């Protein structure tokens, strides 16, 4: 089956709050224009469309239907949607191109977390009969995960602060990042706990944002990008939802997906880690050594638009290939509580 390449990527500014609607249209229209300009493609050239978003985040049913208004979908389009991070929408589009039915696809994700209380909304992802009624919120669950690693000696609070300091320093060079700055890891440790043992710097900000990627069959990719990023592997897996039934300091689904794609010789990795300790779990699961550059964009810790941040990791990894800074890049996306579901992609020049 034929290969597929990323040929265009754009994202909306990562910001705490936007004035637009929860269907993302105001964030999507400008970035659609950007990827059309990058690739020279127009709406009528796109063979398949696929998006990722959440009705619960939007506080309404069918928010993705209104998002279609950002496309101008008439004449009608060949289109689908996943109720997941748009990294999985990219997976569906990747399948579609591989079947040979279409040569190009546009994938987008959007999330306006400012419309609600994100950490409580995400509690509704938990088992509705036995866990969700207790309202353990997403930051609290991540705190339990971080605590397990601290108690077992897998990481220290200083290790976590260093992840945050590096991410924020890298984000200084990213004009679309929400959080950035140069910090000393030790300074960060003087901050109070938000959810013991997590401090503000350990937790991705609440972000409004959107991202878009254009894919093309590899044999046509050179028409749309000077240095297309060929997807040489893409795999995803899910772990048990039962928080007490798995070792939360590991990520078996990431390990399995990483093994399936092959992570050797990767020069740079964009990891979707909304909490500092989760970056450490992911690096171990993927076998990424100290020689692999992690999150040059600043990563999700400096801007985490729900349902778009995973897709943006693939886009940032592709940017590394587009710009010639790397020949082989890894991208990762996560979904669900405590890194439950994970996708790993490898992109090559």
């Amino acid at each position: 089956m034929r290969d597929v390449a990323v040929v265009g990527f754009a994202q909306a500014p990562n910001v705490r709050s936007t004035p637009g609607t929860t269907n993302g249209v105001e964030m999507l229209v400008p970035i659609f224009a950007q990827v059309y300009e990058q690739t020279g493609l127009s709406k009528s050239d796109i063979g398949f469309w696929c998006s990722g978003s959440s009705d619960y985040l939007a506080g309404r049913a069918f928010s993705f239907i209104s998002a279609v208004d950002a496309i101008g979908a008439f004449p009608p389009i060949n289109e689908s949607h996943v109720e997941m991070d748009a990294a999985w929408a990219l997976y569906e589009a990747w399948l579609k191109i591989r079947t040979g039915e279409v040569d190009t696809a546009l994938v987008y994700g959007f999330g306006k977390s400012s419309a609600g209380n994100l950490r409580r909304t995400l509690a509704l992802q938990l088992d509705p009969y036995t866990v969700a009624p207790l309202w353990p919120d997403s930051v609290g669950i991540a705190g339990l995960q971080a605590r397990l690693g601290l108690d077992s000696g897998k990481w220290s609070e200083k290790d976590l602060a260093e992840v945050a300091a590096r991410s924020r320093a890298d984000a200084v060079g990213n004009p679309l990042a929400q959080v950035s700055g140069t910090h000393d890891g030790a300074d960060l440790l003087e901050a109070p706990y938000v959810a013991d043992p997590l401090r503000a710097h350990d937790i991705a900000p609440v972000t409004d944002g959107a991202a878009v990627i254009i894919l093309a069959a590899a044999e046509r990719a050179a028409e749309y990008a000077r240095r297309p990023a060929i997807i040489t592997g893409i795999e995803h897996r899910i772990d048990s939802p039962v928080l007490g039934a798995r070792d939360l300091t590991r990520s078996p689904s990431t390990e399995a997906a990483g093994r399936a794609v092959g992570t050797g010789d990767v020069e740079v990795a964009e990891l979707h880690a909304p909490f500092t300790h989760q970056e450490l779990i992911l690096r171990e699961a993927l076998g990424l050594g100290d020689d692999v550059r992690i999150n040059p964009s600043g990563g999700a810790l400096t801007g985490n638009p729900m349902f778009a941040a995973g897709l943006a990791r693939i886009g940032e990894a592709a940017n590394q290939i587009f710009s010639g800074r790397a020949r082989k890049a890894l991208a990762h996306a996560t979904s669900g509580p405590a890194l439950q579901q994970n996708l790993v992609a490898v992109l090559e020049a």
Partner: protein
Amino acid sequence: MAKQLAAVLGTGQTHHRSKRTDVSMAGLLREAIDRAMTDAQVEWRDIDAVVIGKAPDLFEGVMMPELSLADALGATGKPLLRVHTAGSVGGSTALVAASMVQSGVHRRVLTVAFEKQSESNAMWALSITPPFTMPVGAGAGGYFAPHVRSYIRRSGAPEHIGAVVAAKDRQNGSRNPYAHLRQADITVEKVRASQVLWDPIRYDETCPSSDGACAMVIGDEAAGDAVEGGAAWIHATAMRTEPTTFAGRDQVNPQAGQDAAAALWREAGITDPLHEIDTAEIYVPFSWFEPMWLENLGFMPEGEGWKLTEAGDTALGGRLPVNPSGGVLSSNPIGASGMLRFSEAAKQVMGRAGDYQVDGARRALGHAYGGGSQYFAMWVVGAGKP
């Protein structure tokens, strides 16, 4: 390299009821999954990936329920995808599962769709009024009734056509052991005597609100070849979307449905669908949508779909039996309703439709639509390889 062959290896569904309080969501899903896996004669180790679909999460009041259902879905350690494309989702979900096989990525994929409306309140979920969006305020029937009135005005269809469809589908449903409504003694006269809910749609012309699930196992050519009695081979697939509202939009005969059908027939090599398709499972939530979709799909010229219905040609034994399973008018677990159409089409060409089997069915259509008649998903399956 060309698209790989894919086939339905087996299907399963739950007993559909207004409230399945005897099972959890996991239990409901497993009822359909276990039946599909038995029908397909596969074990968990044979399943490479799971694709699940359902309509809005607000219908159950659980955000992305597939996450907490991963163990029950047998997905732990495997790829799991969750599709949501409004009412067409059951069909779209099957198409995503098919693409996993057609792309050569997986050999056998489990796909399942469900709705458990008794967990929450669908009317509430549909009644949230987001800014800048005109509220419907009358549920799906209130939304679609003006389209039906417009169809009647444009086509000049006699007013009893809707009742003919409703009586036929409910009688068909009485032959289906899984159907929610099983009304063997219903007649056109009884339907016409039932209360008007949204003019001209009467109570008996309206789909029920159901809890239920449907599952299928889709496999590659080798897996399809191994099916005893023959698999249902996927001959063609199509999906199209258009916006909910724009100036000049034809909501009675939407362009997206016409385009999807044209692409479908082209891929299947069909030039005269009425003669070349043996039976059709069409998404008909309100009776009048049968003649409307017969035209939109190209089975009949515009304005003449009702003539096929009136002549009895869409009944079992007719030229084109439509919804021999009883259709959405007999069972409507929203997220699963599209997959039920797709799987009932597969059952017909596999010869596994029991008391509502269409004699000699070799090629069948499965159809689903959603949103404001703007999302379309469809497939053609056949007893022979394409």
